[in-house]
């Protein structure tokens, strides 16, 4: 072993020790530990530790992993092997640039992440979630027959579906769902919309908006041709055709409670009760979703070119963690005027009027 090699090895303290220092040490120790964690080669595969630090220290993900950009690894797929959170991310099964594997969920997560990466790069000149090439990490086969997919602050996580709510294999099949999850990462690193009540519904809506746009972009669909559905064909058929309809909120599945207008806003408490959905974040997102689809249809053409660009600019430069519907709406009207002309501004303003957010 060469001298340099040995020194490099000694320089890497076990992530858990650094993690403890980062949590329990004084300010200087914490900063040094976080920096060491973030720059250590070992940590690049230790997203579970990163996620934990992110939660415990409430650090900005970009601050922590801005150091770990590796241009050779745009995205990586892991297999959680039906374990749960304690085994995240799991076993690495497909690296960036590697050919498809036998496991369809792995390839779907790979292709969907790749398409989402390319959308943000080609349409908005954004290099990954943080704008600096952050590696996109996904874990598939999370838990046993797990009926959900989520963003854990550091990576995407996909269950297999139980066949009772989601079709088995459905959660990785839908490009807009993958783009929805990845957009949660962008929101966290930009506006930071708090996941509760109206700001949470905006957070959800931006994920649906860009989820749908990534799908439309991949199909080269105009606003008129788009189905404006999120997760089309991934629920068991008895439940319905999709998770959400942006153009007709409340019609995607039987029991869909989404409103399309402020008159029907569902005011729920944010109190950990599963029935209240963090204050209705997946329910009231129907209102801003509807405004986006209306504006896109009014302007016609490819929705990502104008309305998408307006929404993207607002998300990444105008909103704050506690922004509410009216503030987001006004910001889109202002940005429409800055980026385009009165036609676009009127279309956006009218859409928000139609859903009762602006007058």
């Amino acid at each position: 072993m060469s001298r340099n090699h040995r020194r490099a090895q000694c320089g890497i303290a076990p992530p858990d020790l650094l993690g403890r220092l980062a949590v329990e040490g004084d300010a200087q120790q914490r900063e040094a530990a976080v920096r060491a964690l973030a720059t250590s080669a070992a940590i690049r595969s230790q997203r579970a530790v990163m996620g934990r630090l992110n939660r415990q220290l409430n650090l900005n993900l970009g601050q922590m992993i801005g150091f770990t950009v590796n241009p050779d690894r745009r995205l990586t797929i892991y297999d959680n092997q039906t374990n749960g959170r304690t085994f995240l991310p799991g076993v690495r099964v497909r690296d960036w640039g590697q050919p498809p594997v036998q496991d369809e969920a792995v390839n779907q997560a790979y292709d969907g992440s790749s398409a989402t990466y390319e959308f943000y790069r080609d349409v908005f000149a954004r290099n990954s979630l943080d704008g600096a090439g952050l590696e996109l990490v996904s874990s598939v086969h999370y838990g046993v027959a797990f009926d959900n997919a989520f963003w854990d602050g550091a990576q995407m996580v996909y269950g297999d579906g139980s066949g009772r709510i989601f079709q088995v294999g459905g959660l990785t099949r839908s490009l807009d769902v993958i783009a929805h999850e990845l957009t949660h990462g962008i929101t966290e690193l930009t506006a930071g919309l708090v996941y509760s009540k109206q700001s949470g519904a905006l957070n959800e809506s931006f994920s649906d908006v860009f989820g749908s746009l990534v799908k439309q972009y991949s199909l080269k669909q105009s606003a008129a041709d788009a189905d404006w559905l999120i997760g089309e064909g991934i629920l068991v058929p008895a439940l319905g055709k999709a998770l959400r309809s942006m153009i007709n909120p409340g019609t995607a599945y039987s029991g869909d409670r989404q409103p399309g207008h402020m008159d029907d806003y569902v005011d729920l408490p944010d109190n950990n009760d599963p029935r209240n959905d963090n204050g209705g974040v997946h329910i009231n997102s129907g209102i801003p979703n509807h405004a986006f689809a209306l504006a896109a249809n009014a302007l016609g053409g490819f929705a990502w070119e104008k309305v998408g660009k307006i929404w993207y600019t607002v998300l990444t430069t105008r909103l704050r963690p506690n922004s509410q519907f009216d503030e987001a709406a006004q910001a889109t009207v202002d940005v429409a005027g800055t980026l385009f002309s009165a036609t676009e501004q009127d279309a956006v303003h009218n859409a928000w009027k139609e859903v009762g957010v602006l007058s």
Partner: protein
Amino acid sequence: MKLTIRRGGGLAGMVAQTELDDRSLPKTDAEAFAGEVARANLHEQPEPAAAKPWPDAQLYEILLEAAGPPISVHYTDETLPESVRLLVAWVDGRPERVESIEQ
């Protein structure tokens, strides 16, 4: 003894309920069920959630009705302890469970 698992939020925002009553189980399975419930330590407080909740994490309410006052505990995908996750998976695997989607 009856266990009710209510799951909401999540990517879909749907609310689903799963119930299992030990009276519906064969005796040895009822004993196994009691063991799973005991291992889950539902009396224990879950670890505190992060300042920033995970977007699309599912929310869980687990209600245990047995002798004595009922116990109700809330978790998220982030805070669900491994022992409770295993209990949920065990119940999900029982053909005697009763499921409904709240609409």
